[in-house]
């Protein structure tokens, strides 16, 4: 075969070259600079010291003693399209490097093309396990720029939906984590309970995932009739089932052996790596934006911030399980305290006229048309808003130039940052621990790559 672009059995090197990512991959030690090597073995600079901790880095390995293997991007337990390259000494992991970007969607670029009204459609597809919270973060940023007040009922609806979403996200995490560890029944249970919440979402917003429900100015629709009963059934059932999970997993010896004491992290390491969410809380830092920097009406509801001690896999599991219970507490309070009133701001700048008026008033029709074709203009400025997503601090940075579209939309995805802890957590662990480590970091690749 003369044409070099055609892959044949003889040109097997082309096959490898096609999926190679060159310098992004894990290189031999002799080709790696010391700073990068330190990163790959999981050395984390201490907050108080400038140099690498020499005891945590084993520089004096030779390349012919170790083996570099590839894991992913199509691997059953990498939770999507994460690709890891590991340097192994027998069964033990020496260096790890995550290679990401296999789901890079260009959402930040697309976000600059869409108006503020349409923007929620875009961001909801980033972290596909917690779409409501993504929309919430984006909407809060836009509302800060517009300087508008959201009515009370909308605030509480947002809180109710966020917490339900947090429950469903943690349930999927429990399910996939169970599957990774071979507890396949947990997989079925987790997805079964999640269907109850998705049914509630479908009733409220019309879609199961990617709701586009929270929008700048309020929410898209009011809660359906009888929502209290549905929500109460969800609370009661799932709370009872969390105790079944306890029976199934928490005390089970095989599960405990793979989780307790595996891949610990200290608070200093977590802070230095900018890790947030359950990973940070598992190290004993009580940092939850809902409590520490309250948004919505989280300062009016009662809940506990769950904190771990050792920062190991089991702490991360226990935190997520108990956060389901805390979220159920918040949902119950939302049911009791839900105020009446409008579900979206009545500011005509951001809110279209009601459907009934469009039929009788020409101005209302024009207003509606303008709002959904051109969108509303947002005053120039730049703003950063942050909310607590199930994975940590979700931030949205918007630069507005006074037009109907964001000039720059940047999203700080918690999984993207948390994924940096992977080298630290895997170091010295055995090959089978990599599965539990990836699982308990809980990276959502849509958010990592955006």
């Amino acid at each position: 075969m003369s044409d070099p672009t055609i892959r044949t059995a003889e040109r097997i090197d082309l096959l490898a070259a096609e999926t190679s990512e060159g310098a992004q991959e894990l290189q031999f030690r002799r080709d790696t600079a010391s700073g990068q090597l330190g990163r790959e073995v999981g050395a984390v600079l201490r907050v108080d010291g400038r140099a690498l901790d020499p005891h945590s880095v084993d520089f004096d390995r030779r390349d012919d003693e170790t083996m570099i293997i590839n894991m992913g991007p199509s691997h059953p337990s990498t939770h999507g399209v994460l690709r890891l390259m590991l340097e192994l000494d027998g069964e033990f992991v020496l260096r790890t490097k995550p290679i990401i970007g296999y789901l890079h969607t260009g959402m930040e670029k697309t976000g600059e093309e869409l108006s503020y009204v349409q923007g929620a459609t875009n961001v909801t597809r980033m972290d596909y396990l917690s779409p409501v919270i993504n929309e919430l973060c984006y909407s809060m940023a836009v509302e800060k720029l517009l300087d508008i007040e959201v009515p009370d009922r909308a605030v509480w609806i947002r809180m109710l939906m966020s917490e339900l979403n947090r429950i469903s996200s943690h349930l999927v995490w429990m399910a996939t984590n169970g599957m990774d560890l071979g507890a396949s029944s947990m997989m079925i249970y987790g997805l079964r309970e999640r269907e109850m919440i998705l049914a509630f979402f479908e009733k409220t917003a019309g879609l199961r995932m990617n709701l586009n429900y929270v929008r700048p100015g309020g929410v898209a629709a009011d809660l359906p009739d009888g929502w209290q009963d549905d929500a109460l059934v969800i609370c009661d059932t799932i709370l009872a089932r969390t105790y079944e999970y306890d029976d199934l997993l928490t005390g089970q010896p095989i599960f405990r052996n793979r989780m307790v004491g595996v891949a610990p992290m200290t608070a200093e390491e977590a802070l230095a790596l900018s890790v947030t969410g359950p990973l940070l809380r598992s190290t004993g830092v009580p940092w939850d934006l809902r409590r520490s920097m309250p948004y919505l009406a989280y300062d009016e509801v009662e809940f506990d911030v769950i904190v771990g001690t050792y920062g190991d896999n089991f702490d991360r599991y226990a935190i997520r399980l108990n956060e389901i219970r805390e979220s159920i507490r918040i949902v119950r309070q939302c049911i009791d305290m839900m105020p009446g009133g409008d579900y979206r701001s009545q500011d005509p700048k951001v809110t279209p006229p009601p459907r009934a008026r469009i039929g009788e008033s020409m101005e209302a029709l024009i207003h509606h048309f303008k709002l959904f074709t051109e969108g509303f203009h947002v005053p120039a400025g730049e703003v950063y808003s942050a909310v607590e997503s199930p994975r940590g601090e979700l931030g949205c940075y918007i630069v507005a130039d006074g037009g109907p579209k964001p000039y720059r939309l940047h999203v700080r995805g918690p999984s993207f940052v948390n994924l940096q802890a992977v080298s630290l957590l895997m170091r010295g662990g055995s090959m089978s621990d990599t599965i539990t480590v990836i699982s308990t970091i809980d990276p959502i690749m849509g958010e990592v790559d955006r």
Partner: protein
Amino acid sequence: MAPPGVVVSEGLAADLCCFPSREQYFALIESFRDDAFEMCVDVCAVDYLDYPDRWLPEGVVATRFEVVTNLLSLSKKLRVRVRVQAGDDRPEVASLFTLYPGTEAMEREAFDLLGVLFTDHPDLTRILMPEDWEGHPLRKDYGVGKVPVQFKEAPGPR
């Protein structure tokens, strides 16, 4: 809080904004780190090619690229945003890797998508785009890459 010579202004929603020069940038972040800002939450870059007349406080010269760093103090429950003008043709600022190791991936992302260079970054390679990609897609002079949608065999009027 900020050392003398750094322009400070109130951003939206009472976020504190600092506008250091490129030379002051690293020292400013270091002083913030020593001042109980334990976490660097976010590093991102903005390309102001189409929006050069943006508002900036007195004494700050606008350049095309700007690097925005968000710091968070857990003990004070305070956020501060540092906006540094990174330059026009060859944007370059100091890497914060030695102060906050967690900025490694964020700086790589800013390099990959906007082409901002970070001095002394341990591994400044592409992170999201394929290795052989040309250009930096989030720059304003880089097209969206839209493929026109055509409906070739659309059904006729019913």
